[in-house]
């Protein structure tokens, strides 16, 4: 068994695609129309296009318990997904200049440095640099 795809639930797929490609500089790899307005939408890191894929999945907005759970995580500032970077400070400055909002500024945590930003689609995302 291999780890190939992880899902990030997003409130609006088109808005998420813009954020993940235009702000985070990820690359759209697969875009398959599914039922109604849903798509099988995969993005990958530009630096590692054969690496793990991210499925920008429509959040189950119609399912109340999931909606409450996601909002509670978001409001508490808890990131459920994290991406690796070689330099958190540089990435933080680059994203701040693009208007991305951070709830945790670059912070050293022992042997790593972290920061947390809002992906504008209902998720806190943590970026991590190994020191």
């Amino acid at each position, binding site marked *: 068994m291999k780890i190939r795809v992880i899902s990030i639930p997003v409130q609006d797929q088109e808005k998420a695609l813009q954020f993940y490609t235009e702000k985070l500089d990820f690359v759209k790899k697969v875009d398959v129309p599914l039922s109604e307005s849903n798509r099988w939408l995969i993005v990958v890191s530009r630096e590692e296009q054969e690496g793990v894929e991210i499925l920008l999945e429509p959040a189950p907005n119609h399912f109340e318990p999931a909606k409450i759970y996601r909002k509670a995580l978001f409001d508490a*500032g808890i990131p459920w997904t994290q991406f690796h970077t070689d330099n958190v400070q540089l990435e933080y400055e680059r994203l701040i200049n693009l208007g991305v909002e951070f*709830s*945790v500024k670059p*912070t*050293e*945590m*022992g*042997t790593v440095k972290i920061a947390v930003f809002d992906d504008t689609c209902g998720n806190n995302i943590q970026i991590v640099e*190994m020191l």
Partner: protein
Amino acid sequence: MTPYLIEITRIKDICYANKGQINTVIGTRHYIDNHFDKDLSLDFLSNVRFTSKFHLLRLFKKYYGQTLRQYLIDKRIEQSKILLVRGTSVTDTCFEIGFESPSSFSTLFKSRVGLTPTEFQKKSNFHKA
């Protein structure tokens, strides 16, 4: 302050209060990153950081969650992939990343990557083409 920020501050105070230990393991990791192609023994690494080898082993595992040996092997395998994709031969790759025998390198590579170095190189050439 969000609950997450409160929690990471709490964890930082509990787990990462000893700056000296953290500097030792970070320094060791950087040394491995810059010298992974050399013969790096535990005795040598502990001498570089002026600490006992068993203490260094414990600290590295405590802060990075893997042993020094695991980390060194991961680093070498990661670098070997870069060299193989560039077209370096399996034998040259083996010696450039600090392994002594192509057969032990191939066995280890296969156990970590799921392909032999030759298969990995062919596959990456296919993707490039």
